[in-house]
């Protein structure tokens, strides 16, 4: 696991001849990582838009998209994407042109940056983030700046309302989100997503952090995290910044075409990342019986450093890496599905209710969880060491 800073860089170092300077390898590795992250965000957005429409449809006793592509309309969001790309890129006359054009890019760039901390597999990752959770939360909060920028630059009352709500909501929910994540961080003793996942590798999920014998405050912290993550990603019932029935589309009212789709990609990528964080800390990360089985078949480390310090590629670890990566992906998709389920179950709340919930309920409860978890960990350490 502690094989190096970047799996792609390690792989390139193993393949490339010694004459190639290190900075070339680093740039190449960065480009590969960027391409993969961008592809992951795009595909995730396409898939989740389709999934959202199917889930919404079936919850309302209808089918959702059925035609595009044949099987259950799988190509619907692909077709929509092509349509969005071909649409006219409108900028309102009285808008602040530079900011208006820059805002969607900033939103997408922030979430793309946050993607860097997502571990694809135990040994395949974009970078060595010892502060992984902190990084994801910080970067995904940066999208708020883009949203406020978009709302203000559009020069319309609906977008300004949306931007104000987004700012108020994110400030209110950032606190419980961070606090509820402190509980698993204390239980795991690390902010690194891969390290936290590696701690939970017992059979049948006995060592999952969420199990009450590990820390009884994890379960309420998980619920708090889910609610705070919904508000943080501005999903229903906390979709006040968009609020299509009262604010038209909130901060993105004036946007169209590909810029508008950037906001959507950001929304689904943010959901994906929040679910990934939740999956790692509250659902056992890479661990499942299948992962456990795959670990028995071959090695678990892709790059093994021998005594002399040279790296060797271990192909027998490939099944484990694939199974582990898919396990995390499945848990992440389940998290996103849970968010969609909640969206099509609950009606939107009023802005004062959002504030009440954030400040009067989630924050004190998260604080309570943090104090309890800290006490539990202190007692555990005092008793067992």
């Amino acid at each position: 696991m502690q094989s190096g800073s970047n799996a792609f860089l390690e792989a390139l170092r193993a393949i490339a001849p010694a004459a190639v300077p290190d900075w070339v390898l680093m740039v190449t590795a960065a480009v590969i990582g960027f391409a993969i992250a961008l592809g992951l965000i795009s595909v995730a957005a396409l898939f989740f838009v389709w999934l959202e429409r199917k889930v919404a449809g079936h919850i309302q006793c209808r089918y959702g998209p059925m035609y595009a592509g044949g099987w259950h309309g799988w190509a619907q969001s692909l077709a929509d994407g092509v349509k969005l790309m071909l649409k006219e890129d409108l900028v309102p006359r009285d808008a602040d042109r530079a900011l208006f054009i820059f805002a969607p890019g900033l939103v997408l760039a922030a979430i793309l940056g946050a993607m860097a901390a997502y571990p694809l597999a135990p040994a395949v990752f974009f970078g060595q983030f010892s502060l992984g959770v902190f990084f994801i939360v910080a970067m995904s909060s940066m999208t708020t700046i883009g949203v406020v920028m978009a709302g203000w630059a559009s020069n319309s009352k609906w977008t300004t309302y949306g931007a104000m709500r987004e700012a108020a909501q994110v400030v209110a929910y950032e606190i419980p989100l961070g606090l509820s994540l402190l509980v698993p961080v204390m239980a795991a003793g690390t902010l690194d997503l891969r390290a936290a996942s590696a701690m939970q590798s017992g059979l049948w999920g006995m060592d999952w952090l969420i199990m009450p014998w590990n820390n009884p405050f994890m379960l309420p912290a998980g619920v708090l995290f889910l609610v705070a993550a919904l508000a943080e990603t501005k999903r229903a019932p906390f979709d006040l910044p968009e609020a299509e029935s009262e604010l038209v589309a909130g901060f993105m009212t004036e946007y169209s075409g590909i810029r508008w789709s950037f906001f959507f990609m950001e929304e689904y990528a943010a959901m994906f990342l929040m679910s990934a964080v939740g999956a790692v800390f509250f659902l056992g990360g890479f661990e499942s019986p299948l992962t456990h089985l795959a670990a028995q078949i071959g090695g678990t480390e892709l790059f093994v450093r021998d005594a002399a310090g040279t790296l060797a590629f271990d192909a027998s670890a490939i099944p484990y890496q694939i199974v582990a990566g898919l396990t995390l992906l499945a848990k992440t998709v389940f998290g996103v599905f849970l968010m969609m389920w909640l969206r099509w179950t609950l009606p939107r709340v009023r802005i004062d209710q959002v504030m009440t919930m954030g400040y009067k309920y989630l924050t004190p409860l998260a604080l309570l969880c943090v104090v309890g978890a800290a006490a539990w960990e202190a007692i555990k350490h005092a008793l067992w060491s």
Partner: protein
Amino acid sequence: MASSATATYVRNIWESVKTTLVGMRITGKYLLQKPITVQYPDERMPIPDRFRGIHYLEQEKCIECLACARACPIDCIEMEAIRHGKELEWISFTLDYQKCMFCELCVYPCPKDCIHMGTEYAFVSFDRSEFKHDLLSFKGMDRAARARMKEAEAKKAAKDAAKAKADAAKTAAKDKPAADKPAAEKPAPDAPKAGSDAPKAGQDKPDAGAAAPGAGGAG
């Protein structure tokens, strides 16, 4: 006072968690059950009895009496046909579906019970003129009608010929020398006249009916 506020606070948390779970159970149930909607162009909902859709005309029964056109409160039925004795050579029978309100009043007065309300309801077109819909299944005359007409004409011709013969015989008996020649020639132009009508009717072929759009042809 303080304790009751705390109780409210705890109850609010409990209620919100509980009601959310209740809601998720309900939506989860719907998520798993089969959708109740129908994939429209591929499948259709069952059509109720006495449904009033696009009209259906039994053309071979129709006698062009115009009863339906007169009954129509908005005059959207127009028909045109040439009469050959009892038989009809159809040119058009149109209903303007931009006007028609599907009141079914055209159906009741029909003495032959040949116009009905159909089950087809989707009538889509890119052109307004296509809503003036022709109900005929074929133009001109059908084979049976033509055969009947020919039979009737042949019968009539035979009858005329017989009558002319009898007349000729009568006149010949009356004044033998004088009017014999012109009276004998009189039936002669009659016979080709009856024969020349048949090829004229034959020009309008019954297969012209293939050009008439069916009720579903608009889709």
